[in-house]
């Protein structure tokens, strides 16, 4: 993209192009975060209203109250920014930004479609998990710096909960990584192209189990009900954000909603086909049109697919929130250690065995419909299969029996454990 911009302005290999490219990516992601939060808060209110048999907001912006969040935002900006007397002022003021920065940074490596990603990160799964894990910092700092015991209680609960739930979450994420043989989210998404039977959630019963466990743990990891112990208002006033007001308070919520979207989008990439729809319409349209335009149009459709899947994930989280009662802290821990960890381990072992024994996948049961990857799809990211790497660079394919398995997904570019040399869009 930087080269593209440099070509437009005719300034050669200059830093200006990189700056503009970086700014475009940053601003686009910022829009996903901010506009997403705007939409999600409205959605949350409407969904909670409908579930509780009332209407939700109806006044601002017409019948459906769709401008309600904006009105809330204006109200929050107008509110006084209060810092308590006992607070550690610096940490108190900086805590909301830490959380927002963490959940914003997770978007950097999140591919919205094949090649539509702010930065190609080869270990994207790892990166997203690592960065999302940092979000708990803001809660702990806020809880400590507020100088209030309610806040401190909430923060400690959050710390215990998030640190525990990262264990089964990591174990669940390993399963798609193991099946695809890569930590690159773009590749994992592309390997699920084609009919929806090729999605990893339908790969075998164990991946189905893993997907459910992943979603449960992700809900707990982003501190949503029924795991929202950190802000249990019946016991802790409002938990870690008791002392916050105005815009700083809303930043916590922006962070929460954007990380909800990140984990949902990650779930859809890892288990639910990524940017590929249930039926490969987008690719078909793109190939029919052909050329760069076709590629871009199918990418746009892919972005739409991923956003829709993320939205569905967020909606399910809201549905869960307004349906289930909040767990007690010991129940949260029991849920994690006695149920999620063993089930995640079972899913991992089962999926490994399934791969090793080469048992039939859902895709092979319906007659193995393939999606042949067209030449033009490999334009931006050049992936050389492991077989071609030969002894010169000395990289063999260590598990050749997996080749036919992954060939279902993608016959041209991706083999298991490929040596992919990613060119373009890097520098």
């Amino acid at each position, binding site marked *: 993209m930087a080269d593209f911009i440099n070509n437009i302005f005719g300034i050669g290999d200059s830093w200006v192009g990189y*700056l503009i490219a970086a700014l475009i990516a940053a601003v686009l992601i910022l829009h996903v975060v901010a506009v997403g939060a705007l939409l999600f808060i409205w959605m949350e209110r409407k969904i909670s209203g409908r579930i509780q048999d009332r209407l939700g907001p109806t006044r601002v912006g017409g019948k459906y109250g769709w401008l309600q969040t904006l009105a809330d935002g204006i109200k929050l900006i107008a509110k006084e920014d209060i810092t308590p007397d006992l607070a*550690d002022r610096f940490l108190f003021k900086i805590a909301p930004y830490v959380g927002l920065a963490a959940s914003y940074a997770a978007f950097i490596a999140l591919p919205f479609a094949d090649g539509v990603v702010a930065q190609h*990160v080869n*270990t994207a799964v790892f*990166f997203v998990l*690592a960065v999302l894990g940092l979000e708990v*910092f803001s809660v702990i700092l806020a809880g400590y710096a507020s100088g209030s015991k309610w806040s401190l209680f909430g923060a400690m609960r959050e710390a215990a909960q998030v640190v525990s739930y990262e264990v089964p979450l990591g174990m669940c994420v390993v399963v798609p990584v193991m099946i695809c043989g890569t930590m690159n989210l773009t590749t994992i998404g592309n390997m699920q192209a084609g009919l929806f039977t090729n999605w990893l959630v339908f790969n075998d019963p164990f991946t189905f189990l893993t997907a459910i466990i992943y979603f449960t743990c992700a809900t707990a990891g982003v501190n949503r009900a029924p795991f929202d112990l950190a802000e249990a208002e019946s016991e802790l006033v409002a938990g870690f954000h008791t002392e916050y007001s105005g815009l700083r308070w809303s930043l916590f919520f922006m962070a929460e909603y954007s990380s909800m979207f990140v984990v949902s989008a990650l779930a859809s990439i890892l288990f639910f086909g990524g940017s590929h729809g249930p039926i490969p319409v987008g690719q078909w349209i793109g190939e029919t049109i052909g050329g760069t335009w076709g590629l871009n149009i199918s990418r746009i459709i892919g972005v739409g697919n991923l956003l829709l899947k993320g939205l569905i994930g967020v909606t399910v989280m809201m549905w869960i929130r307004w349906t289930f009662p909040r767990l007690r802290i010991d129940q949260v821990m029991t849920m994690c250690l006695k149920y999620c960890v063993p089930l995640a381990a079972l899913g991992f072992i089962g999926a490994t065995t399934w791969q090793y024994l080469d048992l039939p996948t859902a895709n092979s049961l319906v007659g193995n419909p393939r999606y042949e990857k067209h030449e033009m799809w490999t334009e931006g990211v050049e992936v050389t299969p492991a077989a071609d790497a030969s002894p010169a660079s000395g990289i063999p394919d260590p598990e050749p029996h997996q080749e036919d398995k992954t060939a279902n997904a993608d016959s041209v570019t991706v083999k298991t454990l490929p*040596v992919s*040399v990613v060119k373009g869009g*890097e520098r």
Partner: protein
Amino acid sequence: MDLIAVAWPYWHQFFFIIFATIAIGFGFGVLLSKNVVRMAFYLVLSLGSTAGLFFLAGAEFVGAMQLMIYVGGTLVLLIFGVMLTAQKDFINMDTHTQDWILATIVGGSLLMVLLFGAFGAEDWRTPQDINDAHVSATKEATPLGLALTGIRVDTLGESTDAVADGKSGYLMPFIIVSFHLLVVLIGAAYMARTKKLSHATDDKSSRAKLMLFKMEHEEEPLEEAKYVVTHKGKSALNPLDPNDED
């Protein structure tokens, strides 16, 4: 030293200076701050920008590792800092003069070694060279993962001898470290247990628990149990009450 003094600007250099400044600045913040929680927070920022340096160098796996392990580890430090020192009396730490002197000697000698290493390098690639040569690291964690499981893909072509030096990968150190960590974990759990059992004879509440436990199994009269419960001042009907651990 052409490390910095070249034609401005290259974006690598720009971000290198930003990340390096943040890392060093907050490193000094850790040194000079007296508040435990702030120290931990500055340490997080310092380590995070070090991860930024790794990403800048194209070592994405190491960068993500840095975030996951070091920054995540500091998170636990922070949690303990908050948990154990949230009272006003303990939150500030004064460093003694002798500690300062010792730390200056140790840290200074390490810094000298690093500086000699850095300035002793014959030929630094300048940002200019890198920009011209389009050098970029292999953005691939697969060889690393294979090396950890015993296959050194980068040395496969060198020798046909199966047990040649450097061909077996890092499986052995990896396993040793894994087992070491496992031993540490089990040891920690064991020590936590032992402490509790050694107090069992003289600690009142533990004795109460033991009695309750005995009572449940031998069906002693109920009155005694009632006495135990009220004596403890809280509901001790469950001998494994999670709120009552030391």
